[in-house]
C-alpha cells in the first residue's frame, strides 16, 4: 500500500481511498449551492525507438483536481494539480466565482444523487508493474530482429495506470481504475514500410515480437512499389484502417449534434442509410472496450443500439439534451459545462466471419490497406473524408497479393463506404492513430475512391 503522495516507480501516486478523501475535503470547503469534483491520478511511461535504438524514454505522474460549482442556476469549472489546503480553497473559489459571472442557464439540471454502477475489470497488476527495463528489453529484441534483416525499426512501447473518482455534494460517488498498454512498430526498408499496433489494458495481451514480425513481412512484401492509377477500386481495409475512418462518425450520434444541425444524421434517422450488414452499438461493457461505467455527470452508461442493419435507430443523450429532446438520458454526457453535450465513446461494430485472407482470395482486382493517415472531414453532411494510405498498401490481382503500390490519397464518403461493404471480418479491438480504440472488423468495400497517388 502506498502512503499518501508517495511516488512509486511505476504505479499509482494515490490510492482510490486517498482520492476519495481529497474529494471529501473539497466538497467540505465549498460554499456553492452544489459542488462536483473529479480527480484523476495518472502514471504513464513510454519508451520510444527509431533507427533501431531508443531515442526517447519518458515517464510522468500527474494529478488533476477538477471542481464544478453551481451558484444561482449557473455553473463553471476550475482545475488544479495542487493538493494543499490553500490551493484546494482557491480552486473551489475559482469555480464559484466563474459560475457567478455569467447569465443564468435555464437548461441546467440539479446534480445527481447516489447511483449504482455495473463493475468493469480494466485494471491489471501486470501492466501497472511494467518498468523501463522490461520495455527496453522488448524494444531491444525488436531492434535486433530488424537489424538482422537489414531493416530499420521505429515505434513505441507504453504503459500506464489511472485512478479516478467523481463525487458531488448530493452524495454521488463513483470510482474507476484502469491500466493501458500499447506497442506500435513501423519497419522500414529503402522504398517500403510495414506497420502493426496493439493496445490492451492487460500488457500480457501485447506481443511485441509478433507485431514486429508482421510489420517486417509487410515491408518485405511491399518492396519496389508499383505506381497504380487513381480511381475506384475494391478496397480491403484491415481493422486499423476501418477504425480510423469510421471513428469519424461518433459525434454524429450525439443528440446535441442533431439539435445543432451539424450531424450527418439530420433528416436521416430511421432511414436505410448504410448496408444491411452494418449494425453498430455503443457498449462500454463489451469485453474489448475501455472506459468507465459512468458519464461526466456520474450517470451509469447504457448499451445503445445506434444502427440496426443499416438504419440509424438511436442517439445518445446527456441529461440536459434528453430533456430538450424528450428522450431518456443514456449515460453519455460529457463533463459539464460543455457545448457538445454527449458522445458515444465505445463504438462496437457487428462483425462477420471472413478473414482478410478470404477477402483477398475473393478479389479479382483491388487494394489492400494496412493503415490510413491524416484523416480530415471534407464534407460534414455527406461525410466525405480525405486521407492517405500508409505503411503497407498492396495491389490484389486474381485473389493474390500481386505487389506493393505507392500510397494513395482517398476522398470517400463514409456513408457510401458503409453501403458498399461486401465482406466483414470478426470484430476486434483495433488500434489506429486517428481515432480512439474501438471494436471493428476488417471490411471488403466496393467502389472505394482513391483520388490521387503520392511519390512513395
Amino acid at each position: 500500500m502506498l502512503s499518501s503522495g508517495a511516488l512509486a516507480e511505476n504505479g499509482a501516486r494515490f490510492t482510490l481511498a486517498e482520492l476519495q478523501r481529497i474529494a471529501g475535503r473539497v466538497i467540505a470547503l465549498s460554499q456553492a449551492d452544489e459542488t462536483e469534483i473529479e480527480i484523476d491520478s495518472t502514471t504513464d511511461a513510454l519508451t520510444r525507438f527509431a533507427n533501431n535504438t531508443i531515442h526517447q524514454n519518458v515517464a510522468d505522474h500527474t494529478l488533476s483536481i477538477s471542481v464544478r460549482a453551481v451558484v444561482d442556476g449557473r455553473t463553471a469549472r476550475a482545475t488544479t494539480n495542487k493538493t494543499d489546503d490553500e490551493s484546494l480553497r482557491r480552486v473551489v473559489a475559482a469555480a464559484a466565482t466563474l459560475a457567478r459571472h455569467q447569465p443564468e442557464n435555464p437548461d441546467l439540471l440539479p446534480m445527481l444523487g447516489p447511483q449504482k454502477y455495473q463493475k468493469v475489470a480494466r485494471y491489471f497488476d501486470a501492466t501497472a508493474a511494467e518498468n523501463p527495463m522490461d520495455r527496453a528489453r522488448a524494444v531491444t529484441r525488436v531492434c535486433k530482429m530488424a537489424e538482422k534483416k537489414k531493416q530499420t525499426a521505429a515505434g513505441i512501447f507504453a504503459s500506464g495506470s489511472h485512478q479516478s473518482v467523481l463525487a458531488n455534494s448530493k452524495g454521488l460517488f463513483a470510482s474507476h481504475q484502469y491500466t493501458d498498454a500499447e506497442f506500435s512498430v513501423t519497419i522500414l526498408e529503402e522504398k517500403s514500410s510495414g506497420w502493426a499496433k496493439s493496445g490492451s489494458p492487460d500488457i500480457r495481451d501485447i506481443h511485441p515480437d509478433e507485431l514486429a514480425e508482421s510489420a517486417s513481412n509487410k515491408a518485405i512484401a511491399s518492396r519496389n512499389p508499383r505506381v497504380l492509377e487513381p480511381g475506384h477500386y475494391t478496397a480491403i481495409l484491415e481493422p486499423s484502417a476501418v477504425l480510423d475512418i469510421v471513428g469519424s462518425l461518433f459525434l454524429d450520434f450525439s443528440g446535441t449534434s442533431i439539435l445543432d444541425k451539424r450531424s450527418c444524421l439530420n433528416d436521416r434517422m430511421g432511414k436505410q442509410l448504410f448496408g444491411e450488414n452494418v449494425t453498430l452499438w455503443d457498449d462500454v461493457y463489451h469485453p474489448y472496450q475501455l472506459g468507465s461505467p459512468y458519464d461526466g455527470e456520474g450517470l451509469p452508461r447504457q448499451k445503445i443500439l445506434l444502427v440496426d442493419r443499416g438504419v440509424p435507430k438511436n442517439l445518445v443523450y446527456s441529461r440536459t439534451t434528453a430533456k430538450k429532446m424528450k428522450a431518456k438520458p443514456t449515460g453519455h454526457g460529457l463533463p459539464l459545462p460543455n457545448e457538445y453535450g454527449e458522445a458515444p465513446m465505445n463504438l462496437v461494430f457487428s462483425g462477420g466471419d471472413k478473414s482478410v485472407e478470404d477477402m483477398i482470395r475473393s478479389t479479382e482486382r483491388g487494394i489492400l490497406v494496412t493503415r490510413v493517415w491524416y484523416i480530415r472531414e471534407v464534407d460534414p453532411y455527406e461525410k466525405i473524408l480525405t486521407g492517405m494510405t500508409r505503411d503497407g498498401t498492396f495491389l490484389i490481382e486474381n485473389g493474390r497479393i500481386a505487389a506493393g503500390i505507392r500510397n494513395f490519397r482517398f476522398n470517400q464518403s463514409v456513408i457510401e463506404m458503409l453501403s458498399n461493404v461486401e465482406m466483414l471480418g470478426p470484430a476486434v479491438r483495433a488500434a489506429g492513430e486517428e481515432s480512439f480504440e474501438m471494436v471493428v472488423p476488417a471490411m471488403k468495400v466496393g467502389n472505394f475512391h482513391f483520388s490521387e497517388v503520392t511519390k512513395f
Partner: protein
Amino acid sequence: MMLDWAALGIETAKLRGASYADARVMDTRQREIATKNGEVGNLLESESLGIGIRVIASGAWGFASTDRLTREGVQACAAQAINIAKASALAKRENVALAPEETYVDTWQNPFVKDPFRIPVERQIDLLLRADKEILAVKGVTLAEGSMSFRKIDQLFVSSTGSVIHQIKMQSGAGIAATSFGDSEIQKRSYPNSFGGQHALQGYELIESLDLVGNAPRIAEEAVALHSAAQCPEGTSTIILGGSQLGLQIHESIGHPIELDRVLGQEANFAGMSFLTLEKLRKLKYGSDIVNVVADARLEHGPGLGTFAYDDEGVPAQCTPIITNGLFTGYLSNRETAATIGETRSNGTMRTENWNRLPIIRMTNISINPGTWKYDDLIADTDDAILMETNRSWSIDDRRYQFQFSTEIGWEIKGGKKGRMIKNPSYSGITTEFWNSCDAICSREYWTLWGTPNCGKGQPMQTMGTGHGASPTRFRNIKVGVAFAK
C-alpha cells in the same frame, strides 16, 4: 521556489550519474470560454505546476516528470529519469552527443498591454454573446459559436552546464463561426480564422483588435449564401490563397518537412518522415525565385505563437533562412540533431507543451516573406482564377509530398475582377511543384502573423502553438476540385 526545485533536480541527477541534466519548472494558468447559440458552453479556469527533468546517463536519454514538488518528490523524479536513461542504454548504438551551446542567465517576458486574466470574465462572455446574437439574427443560420482562450506560462529552465532562464509568456486567442444547414448540406464560415480564430503572444488587446461583433453578420450571411453558390469546378486553375490558408499551407508543406527529427527518422512511427533528405540541403529548388521563408522565433518577427527568447533546451531564439530565393537552405534543429548532421550549433527549436512532456523539435514562426504586390493589383492582374479563403480541411502524406486542402469559401476571378461565390473549394498537389508555381506574393501591408494553436506531434502526443506569417499569394496550374470529384 522554482529555482530550488530545479536545482535540486539537477543536483540529484548529477549525483546519480548524469553527464548532463536540465530541468523545466512550469506554472501555467488557462482560461477557456465557449458560447453557442446565445448560451455559455465551456467555462473553465485551470492551473498546473510541475517539473520535468531530462538527463543523459550511460550515454542515453531519460526523462521523468512530477507535480509532487517536495524534496522527496523532486529527488524521486530525478532518480527515475536516471533509471530510465540506464534502461535506454540497453538499446544504445552510440552515446548521445550535443552541439555546444553557451550558458545563459536571463529573464524574459513577452510584451502585452492588457492582462486577459484581469479582464472580468463577464465582459469576455458578453463580447462572445453579442457576436452570437449578430450571427443568429441572419435567417438561415442554424448554429452560432464563439470561443476565447488565454494561457500564461511561467517557466524556469536550469541546466547542469549553468544556464538559468526564466521566461513568462502570455497567449490570447478568439474566434467566431456561423453554420448553416439546409438543402442537404452544411456550410460554415469562421472569423478571423477557422478552428478557434486568431491566436498570438499578446494580451487582451488582441481580442479587442479583432472586431468579432462587427464581422459576425458578414460571416453569417456568407454561410447562408454558400448554399446557392456555384460548386468549385474540377480541373486545373490559377488559385489565389488568402493569408490564413497560406499560413496553414506553409505549416504543412514547409514547416513539418524541415523538422530534422523527422528527416533523421525519429518520427517514423507516428508523425512520419520527410522528403527533405540531407543531400537536398542547399541543392533543392523548393519554390520559385520569389519564395523566401524563414523560421524566426525572435520577438522582432512579431508576437507569434512560436516567439520566445530561449527554446526549451536553453538555446537563444534565432532567425534561420529556410527557403532563400526558392532554394532550400535550412532545417529546424536541436542540439542533438545539429551535432548529428555536423552543424556547429542548434538553431533553437526545442519546445515542450508543458512540464510533463519532453521537449522535441517544433516549428517556431515559419513565415513567408512579403512580396511586392498590392492586393487590388494582384486581382486586376489575374485573368481566370479561384480565390480561396479560410481553411476547412487539411491533409498531407507522412513524407509531406502530396497534400489536399479545402477552404470554407471561394470566389471566381474573371478578367481581373472578383466575381461569383464558389462553394466547397479544394486544391491538391505535390509540395515542391506547388511552391515552384508561385508567381505573386502580396506586400507587407497584407501580411499577418497567424497563430496555429493545435499542432500535434510526438509520442506521447504534444499540442503546440506555431506562428505563420503570410499574405495573399498566387499559384499557377493547380489541380482543383478533386475533393468532391465522383
